[in-house]
């Protein structure tokens, strides 16, 4: 009776999942495959959708080879990694510091809610506006930062700071860190609040100090959340577009050119080289999928390996005992 009922209703599982599947097939899978195919073509020009006639039959990998050998793509890839790495490290350290402060069981910090709201604020503001705002603040000769540094006596006269590759990159890194540390801190704090209090009590009874508790109890407990943050940040970082585009449009001298900006420029600026841009997209797509699955694999493997070790140990012990018993 029960079984029959479940069987009857089962079809609604498919019906209710159908819109999602259809939308995914049309708006996500189809573009993925389409982009992949375009990577093997010589398609150019906006509005041109006739790809079948321009497939590069003779050297199908031409676009991929061109992109991988391209100097500005390499530069863009290195830039993207530098900008992501240099923003992720201070971001996660600052977030961990805030987490340690806000979840300290011995001294509670008041107005945590207010601080969290403040820390998260830059994240919710349109990135395009943030980028334009910072471009305006760092403007030459009459920008806020220039005037401020002159008033403080650090500069004698206005300096065109955005001509310097490292300064510009530094500002982009600062913006990214500034936008994301609050988010990361909130995520980590909620992770720490989810740890069973008994663990901390046990650590206290054992006489662990604050640092020992943080490094031996707190950090290992939020390993999964840290990993999740790492992966999402990495994917976001490898897709970085809005800030470098509207801050200095990849400049100066391609110092803030990211891979997404490279793809955009290839496809929609000047040459309309859809083939090459698609190839570059697919290379980045593969890198992201590879990296994120690698990171997930590493974590899962560790736990499983430990579990397997434990099982083996117990099996050995069991066998040993059996033998002992037999003997």
């Amino acid at each position, binding site marked *: 009776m029960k079984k029959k009922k*479940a069987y009857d209703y*089962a079809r609604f*599982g*498919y019906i*209710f*999942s159908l819109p*999602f*599947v*259809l*939308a995914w097939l049309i*708006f*996500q899978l189809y*573009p*993925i495959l*389409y*982009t992949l195919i*375009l990577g093997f073509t010589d398609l150019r020009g906006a509005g*041109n*959708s006739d*790809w079948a006639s321009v497939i590069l039959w003779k050297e199908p990998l031409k676009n991929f080879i061109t992109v991988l050998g391209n100097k500005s793509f390499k530069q863009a890839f290195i830039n993207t990694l530098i900008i992501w790495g240099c923003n992720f490290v201070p971001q996660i350290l600052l977030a961990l510091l805030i987490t340690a402060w806000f979840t300290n069981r*011995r*001294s509670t*910090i008041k107005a945590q809610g207010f*601080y*969290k*709201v*403040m820390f*998260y*604020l830059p994240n*919710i*503001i349109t990135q*395009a*506006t*943030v980028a334009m*705002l*910072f471009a*305006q*603040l760092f403007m030459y000769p*009459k*920008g806020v930062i220039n*005037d401020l540094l002159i*008033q403080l006596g650090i500069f004698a006269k206005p300096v065109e700071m955005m001509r310097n590759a490292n300064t510009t990159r530094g500002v982009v890194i600062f913006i990214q860190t500034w936008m994301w540390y*609050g*988010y990361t801190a*909130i*995520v980590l*704090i*909620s992770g720490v609040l989810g740890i069973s209090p008994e663990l901390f009590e046990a650590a206290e009874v054992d006489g662990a100090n604050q640092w020992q508790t943080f490094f031996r109890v707190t950090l290992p407990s939020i390993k999964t959340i840290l990993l*999740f943050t790492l992966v*999402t940040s990495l994917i976001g970082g490898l*897709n970085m577009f809005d800030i470098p585009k*509207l801050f200095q449009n990849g400049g100066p001298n391609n110092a803030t050119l990211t891979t997404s900006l490279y793809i*955009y420029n290839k*496809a929609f600026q000047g040459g309309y080289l859809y083939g090459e*841009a*698609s190839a570059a*997209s697919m290379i980045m*797509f593969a890198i992201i*999928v590879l990296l*994120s699955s690698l990171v997930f694999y590493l974590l899962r493997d560790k736990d499983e390996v430990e579990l397997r070790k434990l099982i083996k140990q117990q099996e050995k012990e069991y066998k040993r005992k059996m033998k002992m018993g037999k003997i």
Partner: protein
Amino acid sequence: MSNNSNLQLTVEGREKGKGGVVQKVIIYILCTFLSILSILPFWMMFVNATRSTPQIQQSAVSFIPSTHMFDNIKILSSKNMFKPMVGFFNSFIVAAGATCLAVYFSSLTAYAQVVYEWKLRNAFFSFIMAIMMLPGQLTLIGFLQMCYKFHLTNNLIMLILPSIAAPSMVFFMRQYLQPALPVEIVHSARIDGAREFYIFNKIVLPIMKPAIATQAIFSFVGSWNNLFTPMVLISSTKKYTMPMMVSLLRADIYKTEYGSIYAGLTLTILPLIVVYLLLSKYIVAGVALGSVKG
């Protein structure tokens, strides 16, 4: 030996008592500093939006608002390029449409996961987990080509429809629904003769309200702030969304109108700031919630 370590412990304990206050003061100072750092750029923007261009040229740094806000906005609109109302309207349509679709269909998909027992259920869930991390931005050229084929470039609908498939939202909704929905309610509704769609719309959706509210905020903000997709898809200035309008402020005709640029930037984020200050509690709670579940 044991005496020694005991002594150390007490010394450490005493130091902590004193150090605790100093540590606390340092924490408060640093947190306040970070808070100021969060608002300072926006405050600078707001102040300069109220100052005339000559005032800014004299000194770009000021913390006290002036009275030229409306003059700046007038100059901005006189150039007939940057139209915040158009951007606002388009962004609102896209963000609202995308959010409604994403929230409704994600809930529906999650409901199918939680309530029904079908053969492919677990396989489908693994599939959702797998596609959650796929970077959509990188397949935009294929997406654009598809839109060309169906003559749907310059159409806001193409910014709305893709949100029907939002894997991470389905994941969140499923995690929320699983403990929150007593299956007995569904059973008794069935006995009363309610149809499956009716049960979902009238009984399950209201139960999911808290989760829907949280996800709706993030979906809305994400859609509102999106720059890359509309920039690729839309070329007619009539269909420009807000972030695209912002990029128009880079145009040469505004180059020397410092006050107006700041005013334009202020207009683009004013609605966001107001909404954020009203809903900040829920938004911050939502960020925390999403992380625990995700």
